[in-house]
């Protein structure tokens, strides 16, 4: 098995280095061969070997500020364009009663390509923020080819421009994206007006102040108050002016009317009209499906789509969200993580409303009854072509086990295998040791950290170390990967739709803005092809600009860089 893994990596790296047609090379020279781990596990926890030691600090205090439970953003991004995914962790902060013995720092782990990572946050200038940090969104807002960072938090947020030399500059004030006075949680880069520049939507959670702690108790012990004790906030939408400044268009777009406790956000063209829409998961506020009206405004269609509330007309505690074509019909389907007893939701998209709630039929309800879910991503971990699902769970209240027999404070990660048509099987047992313990997980991002053609995972834990999980099985199947570079479209190609034809199979994927919970994933697209005999695939790319680009006979088991408009 070990030899097979290594051989597969060598093969993929070799293929990865080649050029095909007008497709540019994405170089990678990783050497993860040293990280061989026992077989029969889907994922290996390589955090320690990788040298990742960063810990999240929540400022947990006797005051029990709800913000203490909500942080832990993480991002996969290639900071220096060396073809290797680096990892950025957002730290929380101190609270009046929760002080840190040392400085609270974010971490930027540079992928050294030998299975090791090095924290370069300080050198890069992103180790410190002067607010309570929550999440992160990665996007190349100035189309200079280097990914930039938007870090959300309270009472402000920050934009770090990637200088292209391994350092960042805080350009928040100049860019006008401070989001002052707000508890920002999720954020997504997307080009809502299709002008080729990434705009930014920020989900603000709730009215909050460290000066006015809310008091709730369980069995005489101070506890976190329910979210409904906090009044929700509107969304913020920043329009990219193209000169490294932004204009707050929340009012103009109508998003300032969307008041509620917003968390996870994803941008994708739900109704296939060529214009990117938004889905916002909200905590005890109705979820939003914001359809882009193509005139700078949005209209909420979540009620018609029947994804705003549960079947009883009550809002669930929406936290994280992701989109993929789960049942192979070419339409985007949604997963939304919720609170225990509410189940995480699975909505199958359709050409017309309403969407189909498949939470029960997919068995997601069965596997998530006791869980409080946060970060989530569809990932085809075994590259069989059907998006599987991973969810980070973890409760809010330490005292929950005094009240409930069936709900735990530390909850295991959920790993579900898509058996086809969007019906899931719990595969956590095969997942490896990381899936056998409970955690207070929050952020979750997916990316091919070793460039071997399968999705790896990073997860943050509240007041704990993070976990980097390397996929051990995906490379056993065929796959094809794409990195898209927009020219007319935004350079990150956020909003692109990729259709891969592999023999009789037609697989649709998207480059999403946002997704998961306060985290940002690899922008590249991986398409699992299973064990089929297909040696080459055809690809149809629908760029955010509306340009369609078709590529034929692309060899499998390698990454391709596709530049918009280049043949």
């Amino acid at each position, binding site marked *: 098995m070990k030899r097979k893994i290594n051989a597969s990596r060598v093969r993929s790296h070799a293929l990865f280095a080649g050029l095909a047609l007008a497709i540019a090379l994405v170089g990678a020279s990783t050497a993860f061969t040293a990280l061989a781990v026992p077989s029969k596990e889907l994922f290996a926890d390589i955090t320690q070997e990788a040298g990742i030691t960063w810990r999240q600090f929540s400022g947990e205090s006797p005051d029990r500020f709800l913000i203490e439970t909500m942080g832990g953003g993480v991002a996969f991004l290639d900071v220096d364009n060396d073809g290797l995914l680096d990892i950025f962790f957002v730290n929380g902060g101190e609270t009046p009663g929760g002080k840190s013995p040392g400085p609270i720092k974010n971490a930027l782990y540079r992928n050294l390509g030998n299975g090791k990572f090095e924290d370069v946050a300080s050198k890069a200038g992103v180790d410190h923020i002067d607010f309570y940090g929550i999440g992160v969104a990665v996007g190349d807002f100035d189309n200079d080819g280097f990914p930039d960072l938007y870090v959300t938090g309270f009472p402000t947020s920050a934009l770090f421009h990637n200088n292209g030399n391994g350092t960042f500059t805080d350009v928040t004030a100049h860019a006008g994206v401070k989001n002052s006075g707000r508890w920002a949680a999720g954020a997504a880069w997307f080009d809502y007006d299709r002008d080729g520049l990434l705009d930014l939507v920020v989900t603000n959670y709730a009215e909050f102040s460290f000066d006015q702690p809310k008091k709730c108790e369980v069995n005489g012990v101070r506890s976190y108050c*329910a979210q409904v004790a906090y009044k929700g906030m509107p969304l913020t939408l920043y329009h990219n002016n193209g000169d490294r400044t932004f204009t707050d268009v929340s009012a103009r777009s109508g998003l300032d009317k969307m008041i509620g406790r917003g968390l996870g956000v994803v941008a994708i063209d739900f109704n296939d009209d060529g214009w990117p829409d938004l889905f916002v998961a909200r905590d005890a506020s109705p979820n939003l499906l914001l359809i882009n009206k193509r005139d700078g405004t949005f209209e909420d269609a979540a009620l018609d789509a029947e994804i705003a509330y549960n079947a009883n007309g009550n809002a669930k505690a929406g936290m994280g969200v992701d989109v993929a074509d789960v049942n192979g019909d070419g339409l985007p389907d949604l997963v939304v993580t919720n609170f225990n007893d509410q189940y995480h939701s699975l909505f199958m998209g359709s050409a017309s409303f309403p969407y189909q709630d498949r939470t029960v039929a997919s068995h997601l309800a069965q596997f998530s009854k006791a869980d409080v879910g946060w970060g989530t991503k569809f990932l085809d971990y075994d590259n069989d072509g059907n998006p599987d699902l991973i969810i980070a769970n973890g409760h809010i209240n330490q005292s929950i086990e005094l009240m409930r027999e069936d709900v735990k404070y530390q909850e295991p990660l959920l790993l579900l295998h898509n058996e086809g048509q969007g019906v899931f099987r719990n595969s956590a047992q095969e997942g490896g040791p990381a899936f056998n313990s409970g955690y207070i997980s929050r952020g979750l991002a997916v990316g091919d950290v070793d460039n071997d053609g399968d999705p790896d995972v990073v997860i943050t834990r509240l007041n704990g170390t993070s976990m980097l999980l390397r996929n051990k099985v995906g490379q056993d199947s065929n796959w094809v990967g794409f990195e898209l570079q927009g020219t007319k479209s935004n350079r990150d190609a956020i909003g692109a739709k990729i259709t891969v034809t592999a023999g009789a199979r037609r697989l649709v994927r998207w480059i999403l803005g946002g997704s998961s919970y306060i985290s940002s994933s690899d922008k590249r697209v991986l398409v699992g092809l299973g064990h089929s005999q297909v040696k080459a695939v055809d690809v149809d790319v629908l760029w955010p600009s509306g340009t369609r680009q078709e590529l034929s006979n692309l060899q499998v088991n390698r990454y391709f860089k596709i530049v918009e408009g280049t043949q």
Partner: protein
Amino acid sequence: MYRTRCTDGATTKCRAHDRGVTHLLFSIVLSTLILSGTAFCSAQFDEARVHADRGLQLAQSGDLQGAENELRQAIKLEPRNPEFLSTLGTLLAMDKKLDESSTLFRKALQLAPQDSTSRRYLAANLWQLHRYPEAKQELQTLLRQHPNDAAARLLLGMVSENSGDYSTAAKMLSSVPDEVSKQPESVAALARSYYQLHERERARTTLSVLSEQAAEQGVLLGAQIADQAEDFETAQKLLESVSPSGTHFAIVQYRLALVEYHAKRFAESQSRLQRLIDSGHETSQAYNLMGWTYQQQANLKAAAESFERAIALAPADESNYLDLGRILFAHGSLRIALDVAKRAAIQFPNSVAVFDFKGRTESRMLQFTDAIRSYKRATQLDPSNAEVTLGLARAQASAGLNADAASTLDTALNRFPKDARFQVEYALMLIKQAETGDAVARTRAEKMLRSALAIAPINQQALYELGNLELNDGRVTEASRHLEQVVKLAPLSSQAHFALARAYRRLKRVEDAQKEMDLYNRSKETDSRDGAASHNDEAKN
């Protein structure tokens, strides 16, 4: 021949008994004594007569048990003697043995159907036993025989008032004004009937008799009737007619405060209570009412202080604890409400109401394992209490203890077979189980809901859950039928409108769906406003 003589005797008794309700029983004794001299034809009868006479003498001397024994001997010897039967029936009625007394009167009446006294007594017994239709029937028979029987008219008026037939009550009672005016309870019954018939002026005139004739207790009763009928002006007038220097000063002031409270004059009520307390009449009852006046004026702190004072003055009265707990609960101050419940549980370890409240508060705070303990104690104290059994099942299901909840519900289904709430609760638990992949539970849930609807055809929750199940199964027409029923029964139910909108959407009834969504949004806004306060103290669990 024997029967005829006995009937004659009973007629004699009847005349004696018309003098008044309270003297009737002794009159019968006297009349029986009179009859004891009547010649009878057998030796056995003579022996029976001896026992009967002795029994009457013992009754006169107050030895009811001895009298009862003698009369039983007499009946043993002469089981078909209506006089003996009736006399023993009377004695037993005096001794509150109403069921056996009624049986004896019925036997006597079978033998002597014209015996109006026995019939009147039987009716009186049935009235006291709350068997109003039977009482009414006896009195109607009696009035057919003796249309001017004032006592029967009075009694029929009282029975009719008690059974909610206010029209007959008013007719009967108003026909015997002299009889009515002798007893404040009768005046109250007539006034109450008029109030119920919306004849407020007649009610007021009737009650005015009390302030003119009756003692203070009667006036207080009249004021209570007016207060209950929301005729606050009359209630106040009656109470103010009582001399301020009378022995009932404190009660009158308290009652006036109560009237003001009911009239929603909360500040006046509170001031009167404060004056009453300041004048040295500090009672638990006054502080309790003052607590409610503060609660109505949204002064939770002062309300809580008043209830605490009421508790201090009457620590053995659990209602003060419960009232305090309930207002805190209603205000969403669950933590403090739970503290009160815990204190009450220590003070009243055998109170079902206290453990019920404690369990309810803990459930609301999602502290299900504690709630289970509280409800278990309550069910232990009163296994026949459906509310606490339901609370226990809900807490168990919420705590994820499905097997325990199922066991509680199985027991409850046997114990409360006519209470559809248990079927619905069971169905809710099964629906949850079905959501996690249990297909059998899904089938059982639907069966349970249909069974609930067989008991209670308009049980909203059963209809709603059944409609939702059908909707999820794609049986949209059936679903819409059930959900339409729900919105008719509960037009402000946001979840019913929401579900019906979903059904209409699937039936392509776009406009109807939109209308239902509008109704949903309106109901939801109301829910949010109403619910906003109640979330203040809840932990995120």
